[in-house]
Structure formats: C-alpha cells, structure tokens
C-alpha cells in the first residue's frame, strides 16, 4: 500500500500540474478536440462490450457442446455394443481442430474485449535496447530517471511501466507477485530454458535451491553456452538477493510515490552490483507498474503510454511477452530506431522486430498500427537521412510511408516529441481509431464465421456418417412394434394349436380316458356303497326296514325314504368326478399360462396355472396403459367352471328318476307302488333286494349317461380356450391392447433387449442431440443477430 505521504505528494504534484495542463491546452487548442474524440472512441468501444462478452460466452458454450458431442461420439464409438460398421464410419470424426478454432475465436474475442474495455487509448513504445525508448517515454510523460530509468551502459529498465496521463494523480501502482506467480512468471522460464528439473515451491525451497555454478561445474551440454551462463548467473543473482524482495511478494497492489519507484523498476546500477553485500532487487517482486502523472504536453485524458519490453534483450520469453502485450494493450506502436554510428540502417533485427509487432496488429492495417520513430537526438543528420532512406527502401518499398509511417524526433526534446511524434500520432489515432476498431471487429467476426463454418462442415460430415448407418441402430419404437406384432402372432399360433387340439378332443368320438376313468371310479365307489348294504349293511338295513314297516303297517314310507336317500347319495358320489374336472381345468390354465410364459417371459415367470393367469389379468388391468379387454378375457378364462353338479348332473338327472317308489302302471295308467312286500322278514329282504337293484340300475344308467356326455368336459374346455383366444387375439381391441401391453411391460417381456437397444440408441441419440444442439446454435449465433 502507498504511504499516506506518498499519496499526498502525488496529489499535490498533480494539482500543481493542472495549471500547466491548462496552459498547454491554450497553446494547443487541438488537444481538446482530440480528448473529446478519444472519449467518444472509448465510449463507442464500450458499447460493443456486452455483445463481445455474449459472444465469448456463446463460444464457451459452443466449446462445451463440441466437447459433449466429442464425448458422445467417443462413447458410441468405443462401446462394444455399437455395430462395427458404425464404429468404423465414426473413426475419422475428430473435434480437436474445431475446438482449436473455438479456442482461437475465444482468444480473438478476449483480445477484442481487452481492447474495447480499456479506459485508455494506449500507445506502445518499442524498440531495440539503447535506442532511447526510455528517453522518449520521459519526454512524453514528463517523468524522470527515478521512474523511467535510463542509462548509457547497462540496461536499466527492469519493469515496464504503463504510464497514463492524469490531471489528478501522480503516483505509481505496483502489482506485486506472490511467491507462486514469482516462480511461475520469473523463475519458471529460466528453469525451462536451462532445463532445470522441478521448481521451488516455497521461499525456503528457493533459497536453498542448488543451482549449478557455470564456472566451477562446467560440463558438456547446454550449461556451457554463454547465454545459458548469463541466465544461470541471473538466476543465482535472484536467489542470492531473495531476501531483498521476499517481503514484497505479497500478491497485492501497492501504491508508491513516484520518487520511491526506482528500486521497483530499475536494475541495480553497476555500483550497486559491485558493492559488497546483498544486492537489492525489489523489481523482481513487481509484475507491472501503472504510473499516473500529468503529461507535459499531451494532456489528454485516457491516454496511456506503454513501455514495451526491449526487443533483442537477453531475457527469457521477452519477445513472446512483447507480442502478448502488444495485442492486448496497445492501439498503436511506436517502434523507435536510433541512427547511431554503425547502426543507421534497417537491419535484420529491425526487420524481425517489425515482423513481431506486425504479427500482433491483428486485423488492423499495417499503416495504422506501427509508426517508426527515428530518434535522431544526439546523432547526425546524415545518419538520420541514411536511416530514412534505408527504411523507405527496405520497409516501404521505395515509397515514403507506403506501409509504415516514419517519424523523426529528438527523443530527449519534449516539445519536439510532442510536435513531431505525439501530435501526428494522436491525430492519426482519433482519425483512424473508429476504422481500426471496425477492422478489428470485422476481422474477428470473419474469423468467428470461418470457425463456425468449419464446425458446420464437421457436423455435416458426422450427419452423413450417421445417416449412412442409420439402419444399424434400430429404433426402439419400430423394434417394439415389430416385436409386439410377432408376440401377438406367436401367441395366436400357440393358442390356435391348443384350441385345435381341444377342438379335436371335443369333436372326436374317442372318449377322454381320464374322464372315463373318473366316471368309472365314481361308479365303482357308488356300487361298493350300494352293495355294502346301502351305507348301513344289509342286515341292519333289513332290520330297520322291518321295524319301520311294522310301525307303519306298510313298506311304502320306508322304501320311499330309502330310495330318496339312495338317490341323493348316488348323486353325491358321482360328484367325485369333480376332482378330475378340476384337474382338467387346472391343466388348461396351466397350458395357457405356459404358452403365455413362452411368449411373455419374465412377465409371468415363476407362477403356473391359475396364479399365473390371475397375475397376468392384474398386470393387464394395472398396466400403465391398461388392457381391459385382454384382462377380461383372462378373467373369463379363470371363471370357467367344470363340475358335475352344474354341467352334468342336469343331463343325467333323469337316470336317477327310477329311484322313486311310485310309477305309472303301463296297463291301467294309474300310479302304483313299484315295490310292495309282505311286512315280515322275507318282505324286508325282498325290499332290500329291490332297492339294491334299483340303486344299481340307477348308478349304472348314470354312469352310462355320464359317459355318453363324456365330450361335455372337452366341449367346455374347448369353448373356454377358444373364447379366450378369440377375445385375446381377434377382438377389435386386441391389436391396440397388445401394443399397450408391450409398451407397459416392454422390459419384462423382452428382458434386457430394450435396455441394450435403449442404451445403444441413447448413445446414438446423445450424439444426435449434441449435434442438433450445435446445429441450432450455429444457425443463429449472437454476433449475427447483432
């Protein structure tokens, strides 16, 4: 932080200069106009900023989209499930080039942003060492050696300054390194050039870092090169003097009075270097310096003079820094050339320097960006003339100022500098700056369009690749529809087979042996019951008959009651075939559930028969897209009842009618008792025999009738299965409900199939989505809207 005194001193100085400024304006009324125009230019620039920032944001997003597309393609290309054909065609797809284009677009926009967001018009001052750059800067800024050191022998400018005209302030604002940025910006380039492994990570680490000593440790290789010796010596010097600037490595800004600035911007003098003890190198802690002061002549607000690093200086990455600085910070460069004895010509170093600067002008015309300033101060006119001539011939192809304007001044003469350099330069700037800005803007936009166009080409290529193998990646919807159709067909086929089999059984004269066996079993059980004494034993029955007959004085009541009992009992005993019927119905359910399992897989897995069908019905009705008709078909199938009492008994009931006591006399037509016996033991025995015979006959006839009706179960089962098949497969809603079923239980029915297809298609879809997003973005980029 600047001390209070320093700040006060700065302000006082600034106030003192205001008078001068006013005087100067009177002397040069043009300046006011220039100042206004510069302000207008800066305002105009500011208006571009929102769009530029939006553009930057848009390109960043676009880069994200391209990265997403790249990832999607890489995922698709690299997935083992992706068809080989698709993988092959995607092989050439690369985004590196267009991403580099995007990065360049962003960089250009950043340059533009920096340019347009500046509050000043900056004039850079460049040139080889010892050409009078600092002198020129002093003349423009009115600062002295303490702020802009000059020297006749050694290079003295350790830190380049940005100097701004300010009517109010007179101060220097230092931006200091932290230890990390010090290592990164200062130490690291030396390590890289010297190929020294590793970097110090802390101040003690740096202090104790073992740097080689060139003289003592001369080894074959790079370390022996003189430039490297220079660099290692500098590095060692930095290390040895570390304690002199370690405290300054705060990473913050610090305002200092201009009078105190020199240690922060100048190399030690030769005396200081040679003095015993530690050399102070506080400049090493300084990243850059901003100096605000009142210019003696060019008192124009928003004007900045940038001291660019000296070209040709032995400094690590100096030239690169130079260009970077030019691009971002200056609107015009003054390339200073001094025609001293033996150097009054445009040499290779000058040409390289011009090339370097020219490379940084971007989209601005050469003539607008670089002015060559011949510092003729302290030289002779012939030397200056020779240089003029040489420049005209070498640089401007024989025509004065054809490509680059050439100015001449005595850099040490403030007035001369103002008149012969600043005035034409500022005039040029205010005249040409809007056009220059437009050129930069147009040039950048053109680059953006070219980049966008390259991206479109890559996307179109990708689209062609994808469309060439579109068939390879099935559409889920199409596949599902195909599978649903096949499912319905297969189910129809299986059910038709079952129905045909049941129809055959129903129509066949051949009796179901199971049914015959069930009937015979029931019949034999009935006979056994009859012959064992009608449930009570022959003797007990006859004794009871006799007792009853004696009480009733007739045999009718007992015989009638017994025949009723026998009739009911026989009927009940034939209900034994219900077990067989239940088996048949269960069998039908089981077969249908197995058919369903074959076709529907995991949906009805693990269950059989009634349970499976019940679950299937629930699944149909409870589906996300309910299938009420199919569910009803299953419920109807489950409601099939096949039992003796409801299906067969009504048909064979007449056979039990013989088990009644009364009958019509065929001769008289009158009702008569079928059995009349004496009321004694013989009569009881006869009654027993008659009842047994009648019971046996009824059972026999019932059996015959049942076997005659033997096809009824088959008919019922066939009808049930056919009805189920009809409703499930051929009802008007069938096709629609099968699609609903398939959509609702896709993954259960075709376990894993759609997961894979989904995943595969999702990968393709991700690519397509990423591509489409990019296409949409590129269709209407924000700069086009603007």
């Amino acid at each position: 932080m600047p001390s209070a005194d320093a700040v006060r001193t700065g302000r006082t100085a600034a106030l003192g200069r205001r008078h001068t400024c006013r005087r100067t304006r009177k002397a040069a009324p043009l300046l006011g106009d220039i100042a206004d125009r510069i302000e207008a230019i800066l305002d105009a620039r500011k208006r571009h900023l929102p769009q530029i920032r939006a553009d930057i944001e848009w390109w960043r997003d676009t880069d994200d989209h391209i990265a997403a597309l790249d990832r999607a393609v890489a995922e698709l290309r690299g997935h083992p499930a992706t068809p080989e054909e698709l993988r092959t065609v995607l092989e050439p797809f690369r985004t590196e080039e267009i991403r580099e284009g995007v990065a360049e677009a962003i960089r250009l926009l950043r340059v533009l942003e920096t340019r347009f967001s500046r509050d000043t018009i900056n004039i850079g001052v460049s040139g080889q060492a010892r050409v009078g750059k600092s002198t020129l800067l002093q003349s423009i800024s009115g600062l002295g050696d303490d702020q802009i050191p000059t020297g006749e022998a050694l290079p003295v400018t350790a830190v380049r300054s940005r100097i701004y005209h300010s009517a109010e302030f007179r101060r220097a604002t230092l931006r200091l390194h932290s230890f990390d940025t010090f290592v990164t910006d200062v130490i690291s380039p030396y390590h890289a050039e010297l190929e020294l492994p590793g970097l110090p990570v802390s101040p003690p680490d740096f202090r104790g870092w073992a740097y080689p000593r060139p003289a003592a440790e001369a080894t074959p290789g790079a370390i022996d090169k003189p430039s490297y010796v220079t660099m290692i010596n500098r590095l060692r010097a930095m290390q040895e003097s570390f304690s002199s600037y370690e405290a300054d490595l705060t990473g913050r800004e610090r305002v200092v009075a201009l009078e105190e600035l020199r240690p922060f911007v100048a190399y030690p003098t030769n005396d200081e270097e040679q003095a015993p003890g530690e050399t102070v190198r506080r400049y090493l802690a300084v990243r850059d310096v901003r100096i605000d002061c009142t210019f003696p002549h060019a008192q124009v607000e928003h004007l900045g003079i940038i001291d660019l690093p000296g070209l040709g200086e032995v400094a690590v990455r100096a030239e690169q820094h130079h260009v970077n600085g030019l691009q971002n910070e200056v609107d015009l460069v003054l390339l200073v050339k001094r025609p001293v004895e033996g150097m009054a010509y445009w040499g290779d170093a000058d040409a390289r320097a011009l090339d370097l600067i020219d490379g940084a002008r971007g989209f601005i015309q050469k003539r607008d960006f670089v002015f060559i300033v011949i510092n003729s101060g302290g030289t002779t006119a012939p030397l200056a003339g020779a240089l003029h001539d040489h420049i005209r011939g070498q640089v401007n192809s024989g025509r004065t100022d054809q490509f680059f304007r050439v100015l001449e001044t005595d850099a040490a003469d403030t007035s001369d500098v103002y008149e012969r350099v600043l005035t034409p330069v500022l005039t040029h700037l205010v005249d040409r700056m809007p056009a220059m800005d437009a050129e930069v803007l147009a040039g950048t936009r053109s680059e953006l369009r070219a980049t966008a166009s390259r991206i479109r080409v890559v996307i179109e290529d990708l689209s062609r690749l994808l469309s060439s193998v579109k068939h390879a990646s099935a559409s889920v919807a199409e596949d599902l529809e195909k599978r649903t159709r096949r499912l319905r067909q297969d189910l129809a086929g299986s059910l038709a087979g079952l129905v045909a089999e049941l129809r055959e059984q129903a129509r066949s004269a051949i009796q179901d042996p199971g049914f015959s066996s069930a009937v015979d079993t029931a019949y034999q059980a009935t006979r056994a019951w009859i012959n064992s004494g009608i449930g009570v034993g022959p003797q007990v029955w006859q004794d009871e008959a006799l007792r009853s007959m004696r009480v009733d004085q007739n045999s009718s009541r007992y015989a009638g009651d017994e025949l009723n009992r026998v009739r009911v009992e026989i009927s009940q005993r034939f209900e034994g075939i219900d077990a067989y019927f239940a088996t048949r119905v269960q069998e039908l359910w089981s077969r249908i559930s197995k058919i369903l399992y074959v076709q529907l897989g995991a949906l009805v897995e693990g269950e059989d028969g009634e349970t499976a069908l019940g679950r299937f019905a629930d699944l149909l009705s409870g589906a996300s897209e309910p299938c009420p008709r199919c569910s009803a078909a299953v419920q109807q199938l489950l409601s099939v009842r096949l039992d003796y009492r409801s299906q067969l008994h009504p048909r064979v009931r007449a056979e039990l009618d013989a088990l009644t006591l009364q009958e019509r006399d065929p001769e008289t037509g009158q009702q008569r008792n079928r059995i009349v016996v004496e009321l004694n033991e013989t009569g009881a025995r006869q009654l027993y025999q008659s009842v047994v015979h009648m019971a046996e006959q009824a059972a026999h006839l019932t059996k015959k009738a049942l076997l005659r009706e033997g096809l009824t179960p088959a008919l019922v089962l066939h009808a049930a299965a056919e009805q189920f098949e009809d409703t499930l497969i051929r009802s008007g809603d069938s096709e629609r409900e099968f699609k609903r079923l398939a959509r609702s239980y896709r993954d259960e029915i075709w376990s894993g199939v759609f997961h894979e297809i989904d995943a595969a298609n999702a990968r393709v879809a991700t690519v397509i989505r990423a591509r489409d997003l990019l296409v949409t973005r590129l269709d209407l980029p924000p700069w086009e809207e603007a």
Partner: protein
Amino acid sequence: MTGSGELAFRIGVVGPSRVGKTSLITAVLRDSQRLLQGTPIAIKAVGSPTEKRIAQHRRELDGSLLAGEFSPGALRGTEEPFTFKLLLDPGVDGAGIRLELLDYPGGWVDSSKRPHDRDTDWEQCKRFIVQSSVLIIPVDAAVLMEPTAPDHLRAVPSILTTPEVSEVVREWLKERNWRAAEPALLLICPVKCESYFADNGGRRDDAGDLLQMVQRTYAELIEDVPEEAPHVKTVYCPVDTIGCVEIVHVDWTPDPREPSGLAFAAHYGVRWPSRQNVKGAAEVLMALCRHLMAARRKVEVEDAEGKDLKAEQAKEYADKDEGLFRNMWYHINGERKRRIASAAAKSREAIDAQKRVTALTDVIADLAQRDPGSRVHQW
C-alpha cells in the same frame, strides 16, 4: 318246403353262444296261442320232445325269476342240436304247415370255439339253416347298447360273432337266390331288450338307438340282401324275451380267451312283480305267419290250378263221344259212369283247392290288416 299237403318249413337260427336262441324260440312258442288270439291260425308243438324242451326252459326261467334274480348265464345252455317240431294250422282244412326249427350250441358258429369233433354236426346244422326259408338272427341287445368305451365298441363284432353270422347269412342268401320263387324271410331279432323299451314296464325308450346300432352293426349284411336275393324280406323285430328284467350293471372284463380281449356280462335285476312278460314275440310270430301263409297259399294256388285242370280234363274225358257202339258199350259196362264220377270227384277236388286258396287269401288278408307293432322295422 317239403311239398304240398302238410308242408314242412324249416326255420334256421344263427347266433353266438348264450345270445338267447333258445329263449327266443321258447318265447315265441310258449304263448303262441295267446299271441295268435283273434287269428284263425294256431300253432302247436308236435311231439313230446318239443313240448318238454319248451316246458323245461320255462321252468328254469320261472325259477330264476321267483328268486328275484335273473342271470342269462344261469340258464342251461344248448349243448346238442335240437329240432323244435311244430304245426301251424291256418284253420283251413288241408293247409296245415309243419315247422322245423333247429336249435344248436351257438359256440359252433365260431370255428375258433367249435370243438373239432363237432365240425360235421355244424355242417349239418348249416345245411339245415341254408335250406330254411326263414332265417332268424338273434342279437344280444345289451352288447349293442352297453358299450361306453371305444374298446367296448371294438369288442362288439367279436362278441356277437358278426363276421361268422354274416358268413352264414350270405350262404343262405345264395341259396335263396337259387330258389327265387320261394318266399324267404330274414328276421333280425334283438333279444333281452327290456332295458331299452318303455312299452313293457321299462322307463327308458332307447328303441331308436337300438335300431341304429343294429343297422350300424349289420350294415353290410342288410345291404347284401337286396343284391344277393332281392325277394328276401328283412324284418327287424326286437324281443323282450323275459319282460320283467332290467340291466342293473354290466361288466366288460378283460379276457384273453376272447378274440377281442374283453368278455361282456350283463347283470339283470327283476322288475317287481317278477312276472315274465314277453314283448315282441307276437311280432316275430306274426311275421313268421305272414311269411308261412304266403308260402302256403302259393303252394295251394299251384295245387288248385293243377286240380282245376285235371277236373276239366276229367270232365272232357267223361263227356267224350266215342261212337255209338263204344258209347253203348261204356254205358253197359259202367265205364261212362266211372268217368263221370271221376270227373265229378276231380271237380270237387278242384273246388276244394280253390276254397283253400280263397281261405288262405282271407287269412293272409286278415294278417296283413293287423298292426305289425311299433317295434318292427322292415328294410
């Protein structure tokens, strides 16, 4: 037929063992007088063996019924051939018909069951059957009506020896074809039909099913008749040979001795009040009588025509003019008188014969008017 006068007709019966041939015969014969009541026809046993045979069968049956049970197997089977001899009197003098009806062990029909030493006897029986103008095929109705399973149905032809019976019938039909001028009658008689008709105390009416089963079982045979011997009448006459019994259960028992592998046995219960009440026998008898009367009339017509011609010739001979001297000589020696007497006698014979023809025509017309019965079917 054995010739005019007291003609003898043969009636053949062909059916398997235990089918009820004897029962059918005795059922038809034992109540013949009652059955033919109201007709001029009478039928009676000729000779004591026939009478005894009928009485014996009746006794066995009655005993069985009195016990409240009936089992066809309990009746004694026919072990030796026996010819029932009967006389059918149409009530027309000189038009009586002697009937011979051959009963024999039914097992002989099936060569696989026939003892080798009885082959000759069977040949004689078969010769008798082939020469008969009436052939009766008794069929056990239960065998046709009780199958409830495919294997039962498959066993039916074997149990009824249908192929063997058909073979005999075809031989009979060939013989009938040779004697196309003689009336011939094929009677298919389901027996033990009590369980399938509701017209004799039974509760079920499966008459249609029974007829259908007979037609199905004997289809080829029935179709053969009009081709082999068109003049043969085929009549279906189901008979309740006992009347008061009903099947209470049947057994289809596996039996390796049977060609079909199954033995059939029907078990009957006796319907209270255990009185035999044959049904259908009257229809059989009536069919027989119609056939026999027609046959007898045919003989009588031929006889009458012969006699008429002879009377004409005798009259011409009696009235013949043989010249004065011979006429006078014949008058003197009585020849003319003898001739006139002979002519008169022959004329009377011709008139008598014509009367018998007229009488038999009336009897036939009378029988034709009678209801053949609802059970009877004629193909």
